[in-house]
């Protein structure tokens, strides 16, 4: 079964990623071993953004074609995305305490992710309040599109608002200064978390479909 294969692949990937994060990657000189959080935090943040891009794409697809399957993908991706976003914030906060000396600073990236988190919590809240499934699908599709288009605006506004920040570690082209000893473990973890996301998404979509079928029977 394809879903199970994804699950096994993600488990293996995460295991390899863990070994690389602690066995292969060197101890960073300025931050010390705390920097090893980097092998979990940026992958989580990456998956958060990915999940909400998937929400937006599925939302557009739903509004155009009106297939319940597209709506289920949007719903599932939002839910999985909220879990990952929450974790990205938590790990970022844990990383911040020893490096910045505080659990929370209004750092541009942290703030952006926090706003993302609140927006998609609202999205799930809206899902929960509308009983008619078809209407919930339409409303959430619109919200998903608005939220996704809002993201660049949030990014720029927060970025200009708080210019004291480090540039994102890898996302910026040419901005990466770390050695390949750091790069590889990071990439492996990004890959592993992405597969994990795909697995959870598939599982959640399958569950939603089964629930819908049950409602029909």
């Amino acid at each position, binding site marked *: 079964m394809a879903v199970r294969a994804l699950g096994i692949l993600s488990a293996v990937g995460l295991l390899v990623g863990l070994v690389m994060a602690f066995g292969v990657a060197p101890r960073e000189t300025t931050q010390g071993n705390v920097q090893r959080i980097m092998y979990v935090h940026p992958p989580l943040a990456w998956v958060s953004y990915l999940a909400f891009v998937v929400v937006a794409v599925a939302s557009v697809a739903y509004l155009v074609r009106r297939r319940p399957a597209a709506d289920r993908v949007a719903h599932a991706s939002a839910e999985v995305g909220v879990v990952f976003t929450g974790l990205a914030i938590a790990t970022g906060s844990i990383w911040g305490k020893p490096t910045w000396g505080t659990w929370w600073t209004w750092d541009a990236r942290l703030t952006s992710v926090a706003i993302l988190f609140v927006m998609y919590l609202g999205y799930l809240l809206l899902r929960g309040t509308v*009983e*008619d*499934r*078809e209407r919930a699908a339409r409303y959430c599709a619109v919200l998903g599109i608005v939220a996704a288009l809002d993201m660049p605006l949030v990014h720029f506004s927060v970025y200009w608002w708080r210019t004291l920040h480090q540039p994102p570690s890898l996302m910026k082209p040419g901005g990466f200064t770390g050695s390949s000893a750091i790069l590889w473990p990071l990439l492996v973890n990004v890959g592993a978390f992405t597969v994990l996301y795909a697995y959870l998404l598939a599982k959640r979509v399958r569950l939603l479909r089964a629930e819908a079928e*049950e*409602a*029909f029977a």
Partner: protein
Amino acid sequence: MTDVPLIRISGIRKAFGAQAVLDGVSLDVRSGEAVALLGGNGAGKTTLLKIVATIMRPTAGAATVAGHDCARAAETVRRLVGFAGHGAWVYDELTARENLRFWSTLDGGASPDETLTAALAAVDLERAAGARVRTFSAGMKRRLSLARLTLRPARVLLLDEPFSGLDQRARKWLEGYLEAFKLRGGALLMVTHSLGRELGVADRIAVLAGGRISLDTPRAGLADDDVQRLYAAHVEDPV
């Protein structure tokens, strides 16, 4: 136009959450025909009407108006259909005339003042034309919404309890209007609760119960008592 019924409802299902209100409803209304849709509270009469009117989409099945699908070609259907539901579609702070002008402009064909006056006169509202709808009784609001229907040339009328709250005069006028509408070749589907004289316009009676059409019979030759008896026999839990 005799081969395709103006309204064709085939295998409509509509579920709200886990609960199916309509479970495979099929019904045809031909040109020049009026069908009265009966059924107990919550039988799904209004839901069915709203699906044909393109206000709701069916979970499964299809409804067509003059061959156009109500879900996929909703815009085409909307040009052919006149609808009056539970709400009167009025704004309390606008006058009767302003309400009519608003809807006719929104429909794309701002009617001239004389047409609006004529429509108001038809439902006996010409003297109240300049009064705010806030001051109107329920029956007057109802009449105003019927006046709105006359502004728009429709081939299909979908009416939800059109006679409720109307006085004798207005009833008579509406009966006349609907008869003329049938003569022009229109198709009428109306929901009703009462089994009294408003069935007079109807050529057929359909009873909706348990999510399906449980009875579909010509009205001709049926006495009031027969209708009562048939209705009681076909509604699962009589109200």
